[in-house]
């Protein structure tokens, strides 16, 4: 029987059925659930690695060791993993090796909208692109076979709508995959110049064979319906096009997006008067067509920005108008995500805002510290940049500025790539203050364990990286652990550390309010002695609002964390059971 399955779960199922035994990843929306679903299969070793580079290398090592292995990440995670990926292209594989990358057109939860297909071309790696859950499973399975067939790592590219849509999937048996023999092969696996020069030749020859494969593989499907209009497309865009245009046009659906076929595409174009290329983000397939001298219509009619919709496609190709609909006649307030009631980060940002500090931010729930009313974060670039970018800011603007500057970074993000920035500060005589927001979990992606939590992905107890000792070990002498909810003390600590003439680390320790182990009880209530000063409103707590000119607390939203009690100068807020 077919099962309703998330695209990400289907990728995990595909890896399982292909006989994969090692999967290493770092969480990142929209890719996280792939590895979370891998955990359901006892036959597979799974890990949350400290970052994507480590994850990719674990998978590469497993492949060299003869296993079918996979590593999964969001698009920006592939940037972190890029170094080993480019060279793994030269070494090729032993057991099948798959990198699964999830792009985020529309930036539902990302800092940029990069198109990962460019990586396939740059690293010369074969890339598949499924368009729904069923294909997620089939293509992932196939990716392992192709990887071994062509002796190459294969990238499976997803997008948010494929990863996070559910569709019907037929489950099959797991293949009985035997580890490939491990043989020492210096010429293939030791990439020093003499060997790599020879391997590059192999890579170029391989790409030629892959192009021939692209011409005939059933991953690329021709669907001829009409002689006038043809559409070349792939991934989720195929589904949008099919919904919008039905059988009124012909399709060339490319399941393999790198390398692209030449003859198949040329022949398809010859059969149609007008050919459109429909692809979200960059003109990747379109440029390939244009290099082949084919007259196709692409980005001059379709945007490079955000996600497509069937409606948008219908409008461009058949100039058919949107459906009629009823709109509100007034502006509707947006509802951006906010820090949850009880969030430990709220206290930290309240203090940083109060002290008027410049805050070098990072990637995680605490990026929301940039949103009003806290509006505390000054910059957010990528994971780890809070620490190193603050070093650069301090070097640019000098000692006085540095006394008004802090970095904020989560526990998991610090391990991911903050630690290297901290070593830079110590080594190059920086004087920065780094606040590690230790909430005991990887929060943003939905509570994954990490090296600081003391548990593995399978919830087995393990050694816990001690952030305090780690900071001290790299040479930070001023390391302070403080609870941000103790606002008075936390403010004092921050003031002292930014003033100090040496680098320092503050570990702001308080667990995520959504963790099951965190048990706040009751709810807060505003008493009659409220002077309506609205200081508590500065917390930006979703439970506190103004009704008819008076501040009040919504009991259904309040979890009784008590932070507002600490903020109120009149003792007007109390807790009730």
């Amino acid at each position: 029987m077919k099962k309703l399955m998330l695209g990400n779960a289907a990728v995990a199922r595909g890896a399982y059925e292909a006989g994969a035994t090692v999967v290493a990843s770092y969480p990142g929306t929209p890719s996280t659930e792939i590895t979370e679903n891998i955990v359901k299969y006892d036959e597979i070793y799974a890990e949350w690695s400290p970052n994507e580079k480590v994850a990719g290398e674990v998978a590469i090592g497993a492949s060299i060791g003869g296993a079918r292995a996979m590593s999964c990440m969001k698009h920006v995670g592939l940037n972190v993993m890029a170094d080993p990926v480019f060279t793994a292209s030269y070494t090729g594989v032993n057991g099948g090796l798959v990198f699964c990358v999830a792009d985020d057109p529309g930036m539902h939860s990302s800092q940029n909208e990069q198109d990962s297909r460019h990586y396939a071309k740059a690293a010369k790696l074969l890339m598949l692109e499924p368009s729904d859950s069923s294909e997620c499973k089939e293509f992932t399975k196939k990716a392992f076979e192709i990887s071994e067939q062509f002796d190459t790592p294969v990238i499976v590219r997803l997008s948010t709508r494929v990863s996070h849509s559910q569709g019907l999937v037929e489950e099959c048996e797991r293949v009985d995959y035997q580890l490939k023999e491990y043989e020492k092969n210096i010429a293939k696996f030791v990439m020093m110049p003499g060997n790599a020069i020879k391997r590059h030749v192999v890579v170029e020859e391989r790409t030629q064979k892959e192009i021939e494969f692209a011409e005939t593989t059933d991953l690329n499907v021709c669907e001829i319906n009409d002689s006038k209009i043809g559409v070349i497309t792939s991934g989720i865009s195929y589904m949008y096009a099919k919904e919008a245009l039905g059988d009124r046009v012909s399709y060339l659906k490319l399941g393999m997006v790198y390398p692209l076929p030449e003859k198949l595409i040329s022949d398809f174009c010859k059969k149609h008067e007008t050919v459109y290329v429909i692809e979200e983000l960059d003109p990747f397939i379109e440029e390939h067509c244009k290099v082949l001298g084919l007259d196709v219509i692409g980005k001059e009619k379709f945007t490079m920005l955000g996600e497509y919709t069937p409606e948008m496609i219908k409008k461009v190709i058949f100039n058919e108008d949107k459906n009629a609909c009823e709109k509100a006649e007034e502006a509707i307030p947006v509802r951006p995500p906010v820090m949850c009631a009880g969030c430990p980060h709220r206290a930290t940002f309240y203090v940083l805002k109060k002290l008027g500090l410049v805050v070098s931010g990072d990637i995680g729930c605490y990026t929301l510290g940039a949103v009003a009313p806290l509006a505390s974060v000054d910059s957010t670039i990528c994971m780890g940049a809070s620490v190193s970018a603050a070093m650069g800011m301090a070097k640019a603007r000098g000692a006085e500025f540095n006394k008004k500057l802090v970095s904020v970074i989560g526990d998991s993000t610090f391990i991911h790539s903050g630690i290297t920035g901290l070593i830079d500060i110590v080594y190059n005589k920086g004087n920065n203050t780094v606040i590690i927001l230790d909430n005991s979990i990887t929060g943003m992606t939905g509570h994954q364990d990490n090296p600081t939590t003391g548990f593995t992905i399978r919830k087995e107890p393990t050694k816990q990286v001690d952030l305090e000792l780690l900071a001290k070990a790299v040479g930070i002498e001023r390391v302070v652990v403080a609870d941000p909810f103790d606002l008075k003390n936390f403010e004092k600590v921050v003031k002292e550390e930014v003033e100090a003439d040496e680098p320092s680390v503050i570990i702001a320790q308080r667990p995520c309010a959504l963790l099951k182990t965190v048990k706040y009880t009751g709810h807060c209530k505003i008493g009659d002695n409220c002077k309506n000063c609205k200081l508590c409103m500065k917390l930006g707590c979703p439970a506190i609002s103004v009704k008819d000119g008076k501040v009040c607390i919504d009991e259904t939203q309040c979890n009784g964390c008590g932070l507002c009690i600490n903020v109120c100068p009149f003792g007007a807020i109390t807790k009730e059971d």
Partner: protein
Amino acid sequence: MTKKIMIVGVGGQGTLLASRILGNTVINEGYDVKLSEVHGMSQRGGSVVTYVKYGDKVYSPIIDEGEADIILAFEMLEAYRAMPYLKKDGVMIANTQKMDPMPVITGAMEYPQDIAEKMSKKINLVTVDALSLAQKAGNVKSVNVVLIGVMAKNTDIAYEKWVETIKKTVPEKFLEANLKAFEYGYNL
């Protein structure tokens, strides 16, 4: 013909569970189904939108403006925001609960007045006090199942089929309250 249902609400209200109950009920009816969710930011009190589409063959997992047969809204402002997605003869089922978004909390904007009155002049609107019904059923968190009940009445899938999925989806200790919640919604 593909049936298109949108579920909208505020992160944390249980919209995902509702869409999964819906999805699993319709596959048992032998339909092709697609569900689209957006995770990530959605947990943190932001607007959450889920699309559920079912029929003989479903391609795109998303719903465009003017297309939804049913919109199930867990909160009034989110209902108002989703209104353009409703097709002409579609029905909007809206929970009367109101939750202030951050721009309202900070005082930058006001929560629109009389949303239900304004919407009912334009579209086919059913309002439900799902919170009270959930309380009556014995679990305030069963708001989502009350709303599923109201929606179920607007589909041609039999009562028992829904009950069957709820039994499979909801944990044992919450089952009794959720079955009651469904019944209250269905018989509204």
